[in-house]
């Protein structure tokens, strides 16, 4: 167990119900400050692997250590606390339609009980970082897809997580927006956050030369970079 490792998996298997294995004997290690692509064909197990990291699913077998915590031995009250160290971004943004950009980002701080004064200051900073300072009072429906994904990224970052997980973050975006979102994720990584991006979009993979873990049929096929 390396002191630099922030995510470690040992012989992890995951089967949904009685179906086949979505993940099969996966062992990997991601260090603090890494930027990692998780790739592979549809159904390879990328989403499943991310879900195991933020405890949305439990492994059928094997050990997973995230930010120093063994998630197998974690109590149900430990899950929320672990998730405060992990930001998650999805293809479909998951923004609240009736809240403004500011409201959506602030929500992530409100619901973990942060005081309003901290929220105002921190949300303003994050919105500036993702380039949306001037859209703070807009509703998500008035934003482009790229802007909406920036809001989702701001929300994922607002509690200063050590890890940012992104599942097909550019799946709904055109090439220009895709490149700008990837640029933003690189910036986030440059500020010290460990970033894991699941994608099968070649444009994304070629945009930034990074470590690339390729899954096929639930197994790690290659791990390069």
């Amino acid at each position, binding site marked *: 167990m390396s002191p630099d490792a922030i995510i470690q998996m040992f012989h992890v298997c995951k089967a949904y119900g009685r179906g086949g294995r979505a993940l099969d004997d996966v062992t990997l290690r991601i260090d603090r400050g890494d930027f990692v692509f998780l790739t592979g064909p549809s159904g390879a197990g990328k989403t499943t692997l991310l879900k195991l990291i*933020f405890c*949305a699913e439990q492994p059928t077998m094997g050990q997973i250590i995230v930010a120093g915590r063994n998630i197998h031995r974690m109590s*149900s*009250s430990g*899950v*929320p*606390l*672990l*998730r*405060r160290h*992990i930001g*998650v971004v999805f293809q479909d943004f*998951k923004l*609240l339609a009736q809240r403004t950009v500011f409201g959506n980002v602030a*929500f*992530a701080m*409100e*619901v*973990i*009980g942060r*005081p309003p004064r901290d929220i105002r200051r921190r949300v303003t900073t994050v919105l500036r970082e993702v380039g949306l300072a001037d859209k703070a009072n807009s509703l998500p429906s008035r934003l482009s897809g790229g802007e909406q994904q920036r809001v989702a990224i701001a*929300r994922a970052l607002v*509690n200063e997580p050590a890890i940012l997980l992104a599942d097909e973050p550019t799946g709904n975006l055109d090439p220009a927006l895709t490149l700008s979102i990837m640029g933003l994720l690189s910036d986030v990584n440059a500020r010290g956050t460990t970033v894991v991006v699941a994608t099968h979009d070649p444009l994304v993979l070629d945009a930034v030369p990074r470590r690339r873990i390729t899954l096929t049929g639930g197994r790690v096929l290659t791990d390069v970079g």
Partner: protein
Amino acid sequence: MVARTHYFLQQALRSMRHAPWVQLVAVSTIGISLLVLSSMLLVLRNIDALSSAWGQQVRLVVFVRAGELDPTRDALKRSLAELPEVESVAVRDREVAFAEFKAALGNDDVLVDGIDASLLPSAIELTLRPEHRNPAALSSLAERVATLQGASAIEEVAYGQDLLEKLSKLRDGLRDLGLIIATLVILAVIFIVSNTVRLAMFARREEIEIMHLVGATAGFIRAPFYIEGAIQGAMGAAVAMALLFTLWRTLSPDGESVLRFELGYLPFEFLPTPIIAALVLGTSLVGIIASHFAVGRFLRGSPSS
């Protein structure tokens, strides 16, 4: 802590404002169910008041066998006077009783012409100390009197027990009925609140999903819904109290705690404050329990919990 409670309350009220008609239906249904239950409590309470009022007026009368000699009677009187519950003892003399009897019959003297005063029983009237003027104390005292020394001279102990017993039977019957009604009302409140809370959670399912994702604790996610359940329960109970009070004022327009009739009056008190408080708090507690069921069921079905 205060800030957090304020936040939960705000969230709960926001969620309730979101579906005002659902809230209105829920609160008025709870209110009507509780009105039934609290009317029952009002009746029970006044039966209690009635029996204790009667218990206060009633005296224990010990009838001494006709033909017993005066010394026996006087000895009995002394031992009755020594009983701790007894405040005073008075002998109603045969002759006096006979005279009263005759007077009551008016001009029909012929009816009593053949009767000798000594054939009438004499009676000892016991007045109880105020703290013992209640049906329970009366009946236990009556039992004890029968075991006193010289009790063989007693023909009968009377304190209006028939009436008090009838009243207490009625009271017990109503209490059993009340328990059944209370159970039904609790089930109804649980049904109503858990369904409205489930609707509220469904309306906020996206927020709940994000709360899970960003690491909100279970308590943080649940608290607003518990508060919603508590508010619904308390408001329902408050509506019931308001309706019951209106009803009470209508029946007793002077705001008096008695109903007056030609021949007398019946006690008609409103529910005492502790009972009102217990109803309101109890219903909001049932509301919280109902929310707990709804929240648990909803969250078990959610993917990222």
